[in-house]
């Protein structure tokens, strides 16, 4: 029995004022699986991704719980060791490819950085690997692209470059944080297709953060629906759309626009559903605080 790729157990994170931003989150990502985290802004979906990558903002403190990467509890490692492990086994596909790339450096060196600095590859090997990956993400003329500066590439091209960089070191887990949100729909489709293809070929697990249930339906096998830092429902993706269990999930699906069925979509979320959730969360927070004295 092999350990899951990522296993988060009972993870709670708090701000300085002891308010919880993640509320006893538990989720498991099996090897080679795409697990979507979906929720509205402020639901904590990116926060979970950041916790896994060890890049939480300084104002957020993990108060409780464990994050296991292939069986190793990251919170029990010394920070240097932890960073090394995270650097070697995970990668990030960020939302905004323009801010994620250094504007004053050429594409090539930015892509080989990780291979050379973290994995200790020599420059030649790293360059060859990058060339190969650029080819895999179907970039024409990779020799030219590695010499470009980020502003010389289109949004879709930049996202391809970052996908290539993410897969280059063969990570076990990729955190994709809204990787298509800044793109036009037609480009989004190409990029989603590319991520799915690369993910299948490399057998990489992906924690896919998105606010778009449409994207969830197309890319993921498992999904966790978040509200206010709490997972309200976790399910196999087909099951979630066939029979959503939680009222909030149902409301979210009904609110999502669908041009094929304009009257049944874009339904405002019933305030009662949100009020009930808020009450539930407040009660859980009281219990949690009491249990910690």
């Amino acid at each position, binding site marked *: 029995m092999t350990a899951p790729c990522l296993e988060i157990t009972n993870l709670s994170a708090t701000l300085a004022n002891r308010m919880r931003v993640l509320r006893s989150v538990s989720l498991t990502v099996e090897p080679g699986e795409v697990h979507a985290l979906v929720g509205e802004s402020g639901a904590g979906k990116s926060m979970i991704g950041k916790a896994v990558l060890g890049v939480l903002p300084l104002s957020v403190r993990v108060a409780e719980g464990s994050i296991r990467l292939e069986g190793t509890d990251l919170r029990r490692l010394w920070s240097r060791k932890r960073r090394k492990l995270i650097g070697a086994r995970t990668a990030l596909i960020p939302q905004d490819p323009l801010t994620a790339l250094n504007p004053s450096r050429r594409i090539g060196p930015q892509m080989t950085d990780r291979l050379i600095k973290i994995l200790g590859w020599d420059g030649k090997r790293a360059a060859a690997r990058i060339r190969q990956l650029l080819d895999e993400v*179907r970039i024409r003329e990779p020799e030219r692209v590695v010499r470009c500066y980020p502003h010389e590439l289109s949004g879709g091209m930049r996202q391809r470059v970052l996908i290539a960089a993410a897969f280059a070191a063969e990570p076990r887990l990729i955190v994709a944080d809204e990787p298509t949100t800044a793109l036009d729909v037609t480009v989004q489709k*190409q990029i989603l297709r590319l991520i799915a293809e690369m993910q299948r070929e490399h057998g990489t697990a992906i924690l896919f953060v998105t606010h778009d249930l449409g994207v969830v339906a197309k890319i993921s096998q498992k999904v966790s629906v978040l509200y206010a830092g709490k997972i309200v429902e976790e399910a196999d993706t087909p099951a979630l759309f066939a029979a959503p269990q939680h009222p909030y999930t149902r409301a979210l699906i009904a609110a999502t626009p669908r041009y094929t069925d304009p009257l049944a979509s874009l339904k405002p979320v019933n305030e009662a559903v949100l009020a009930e959730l808020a009450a539930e969360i407040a009660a859980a927070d009281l219990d949690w605080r009491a249990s910690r004295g």
Partner: protein
Amino acid sequence: MVEPLFKVRGLKVALLDMTKKPLLGRAPKVEILKGLDFELPARSVTGIVGESGSGKSTLGRSLVRLLEPSAGTIWFDGDDITNLPEAELKPLRRNLQMIFQDPMSSLNPRRTIASIIAAPLKQNGITDSLKERVAEALKRVGLPESFGGRYRHELSGGQRQRVGIARALALSPKFVLADEIVSGLDVSTQAQILALLERLADEMGLTVAFISHDLSVIRRLCKQVIVMRSGQIVESGRTDNLFARPNHDYTRELLAAIPLPEIDPGWLGGRTETKASA
């Protein structure tokens, strides 16, 4: 046949291309809109859809004369407004209002909500019973009167966009330009704002140009739709017809690219696209 509120013929807009500007010297002009012919029927919501860079916002901004057309004619309510000087345009401006994409940056952080909504009224010389008018405008968008004393940072994203709508409608304009007004909002809030705009457009008999990149939203809200690509109109017509029988390949491609919240294993499959070049 309803008289169109806007009639546009041969509209061209050229802007300076600052990315190609030499260090000393003038930036070259680049044509954003390449000769558009269309009408916006009165008292009806028309959707303008396209991908980024297609010129949909440029089109909107030239309708409300925030941009100068380089060629073509714009008739508003029967009058040619293409080359009206600003002084003559001013009385028309109260009928040409805008709701912006980002309600955060379009609301002044140092002024109260009441003073923000009162601004267009004062600008147009309306000074009597301002308080009542502001209260009325807030009520119209479903906000309590007490919100008038607040500042933008005390409001949620959806509430801020309601204020943006209240400000645009304070003068009961004939025309409202809504440029991507829900793209920064969460889906649950988006649905509320769209329902609000739909109701108000109907009640107040507004003519709305609704710019969006999201065909699903357009389908729900708009009677007519104009599909744009690289500064040209690809296809336009009644929303029902266009969605039932899209004529143009590009429209079909746009529709097929929308990820619907439904399981469809074939969606990501299909033919692999050709290589992208820089």
